[in-house]
């Protein structure tokens, strides 16, 4: 974990530098955001994940309302959480392995912390239930219990949180083997909703200012480990004298 922390804080420095560079080039940043063709709503969401979280926290969300009615194919977390509220993450990546292999690795939840740096542990509590612990702000743990709602071998895993967690969430991972090729598209859908206001900050921290950033990073790492046996890193490599600014930004992150 220590390693990843270093890597993540180095990233913070880079984000700000690249953004500064981009925004210093007149029009470049605007063109880039135009190229993404986000809806106005989407752009606003991307610009202010935190604002959305606040809105999500205050608005009524009949979470879980529809869970149990459709156990057959829950691809859409909106169904699981019973409405279009909270924050939605929809990310995908293609992994150069057959779906059966990728599914089997993912299904072994207890090994997921090897792939996703911010997860501390996942422990099975019964056949379909797991206790999850992640590392939150100030190295505080956040924990929740989740159950598997649906599972179709080599195709789908869906889950939702149970009990009274800090974070109400539901998600699904879909595995789609490419036609005529040995690789697999992994689609992660996740919706989360801070239950009270108290953990809003924790969520904002956990997911960064752009919802999905952390999921995307986790997926990328998952893919790298499956495809190459290791995750690429430069943390701990040789370097010359860093500037004071570098260290300031690091300790801030």
């Amino acid at each position, binding site marked *: 974990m220590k390693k990843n922390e270093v890597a993540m804080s180095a990233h913070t420095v880079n984000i700000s530098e690249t953004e500064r560079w981009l925004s210093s080039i007149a029009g470049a940043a605007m063109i880039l955001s135009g190229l993404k063709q986000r809806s106005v709503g989407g752009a606003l969401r991307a610009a202010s994940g935190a604002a959305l979280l606040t809105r999500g926290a205050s608005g009524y969300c009949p979470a879980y309302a529809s869970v149990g009615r459709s156990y057959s194919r829950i691809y859409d977390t909106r169904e699981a959480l019973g409405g279009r509220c909270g924050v939605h993450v929809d990310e995908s990546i293609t992994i*150069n392995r057959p779906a059966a292999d990728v599914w089997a690795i993912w299904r072994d939840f207890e090994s997921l912390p090897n792939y996703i740096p911010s997860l501390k542990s996942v422990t099975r509590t019964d056949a379909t239930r797991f206790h999850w612990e992640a590392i939150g702000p100030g190295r505080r743990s956040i924990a929740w219990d989740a159950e598997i709602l649906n599972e179709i071998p080599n195709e789908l895993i869906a889950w939702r949180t149970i009990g009274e967690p800090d974070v109400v969430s539901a998600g699904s991972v879909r595995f789609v083997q490419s036609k005529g090729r040995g690789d697999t598209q992994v689609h992660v859908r996740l919706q989360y909703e801070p239950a009270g206001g108290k953990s809003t900050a924790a969520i904002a921290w956990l997911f960064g200012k752009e919802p999905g950033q952390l999921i995307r990073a986790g997926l990328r790492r998952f*893919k790298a480990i499956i495809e*190459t046996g*290791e995750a690429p890193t*430069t*943390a701990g490599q*040789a370097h010359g004298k860093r500037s004071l600014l*570098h260290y300031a930004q690091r300790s801030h992150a």
Partner: protein
Amino acid sequence: MRALVWHGKNDVRVEQMPDPKILNPRDVILRVTTTAICGSDLHLVNGVIPSMQAGDILGHEFMGEVVEVGKENQKLKVGDRVVVPFTIACGGCFFCEKALWSLCDNSNPNAWMAEKLWGYSTSGLFGYSHLTGGYAGGQAEYVRVPYSDVGPLKIPASVTDEQVLFLSDILPTGYQAAENCDIQPGDTVAVWGCGPVGQMAIRSAFLLGAGRVIAIDNVCERLEMARDRNGAETIDFSHQDVFDRLKTITGGRGPDSCIDAVGLESHGGSFDAYVDKAKMALYLATDRPSVLRQAIHACRKGGVVSVPGVYGGFLDKVPFGAAFQKGLTFKMGQTHMMRYMQPLLERIERGELDPSFVITHRFPLARAAEAYDLFGRKQDGCIKVVMKPHDLVH
């Protein structure tokens, strides 16, 4: 160890620091025996590539001897002599399987940054900004080589360092640039830029069957090398109009293919080049594409524009209309190194090719800052500098 460190625009220094360590199971540590400065390094020193950090070690053309091997590396052992390609590739992703090595999906730990700028991330590179991974480079006494069971090429004792060093970058780069031209026997190829990459492209174009190569630059000794050593015809863009000249000497048809071996920092007498320079200084543009514009304009109908020269951002006033109307084909990108290293090594071993002809200067690493200055300002006839990291200061 000592290494050449970037501190800002026109500020590189040789510093002392702890030796590199194995960080991942497939890494090796190399004792660098010979390294070079590339035209790409000049873009970093000129401050036109974003996401550099003070303290970054530069250098992506290097070779040496393996001194430490990660526990999952089945290919290399201590004592092996290898040339390392500047693109880092994992060997296991979709792109590596297709031999699109410089587009590897996994080797850039800062993939998210590159995705922001380019939509998708390309491979990690040594010593080439944090956008492409922030990997420490090889202008150093020692260097860590990740995924080293994929890229590095073992070198037999029968060839010298200087004969094979350029397998790390400029030889495959010049070769790919020419290969991308899809040269038919007797074709005319125009090459902008007679730096090391341009020289390798000229050589390669002839190897691949070109009838004529026309080389364009304004640096006397570089034009001379293109003409006298490599058999090209030359155009000095300071004294001649490049388009008119190309059109005339190709009988009004234009070159069959055009290679831009200059990239984002082209300079020169044309009006657009001055406008680009001003815009870049005012942060109104990221790249100065005046050579690319010329290449598109001058290329014959249905021809190929091949771009080994590096671009990074947003290009202004590219004559896309001419490209479309003439039905041009564009080929470009960082070199897919591992496609070319082994076959080119064999050509070197057979004596068909000796890329060391570009070397004009040799320095100990301790004097690297001086070498950068010389190469950057093209002083003292400097075309290519190689450095010996373990040589004593003199």
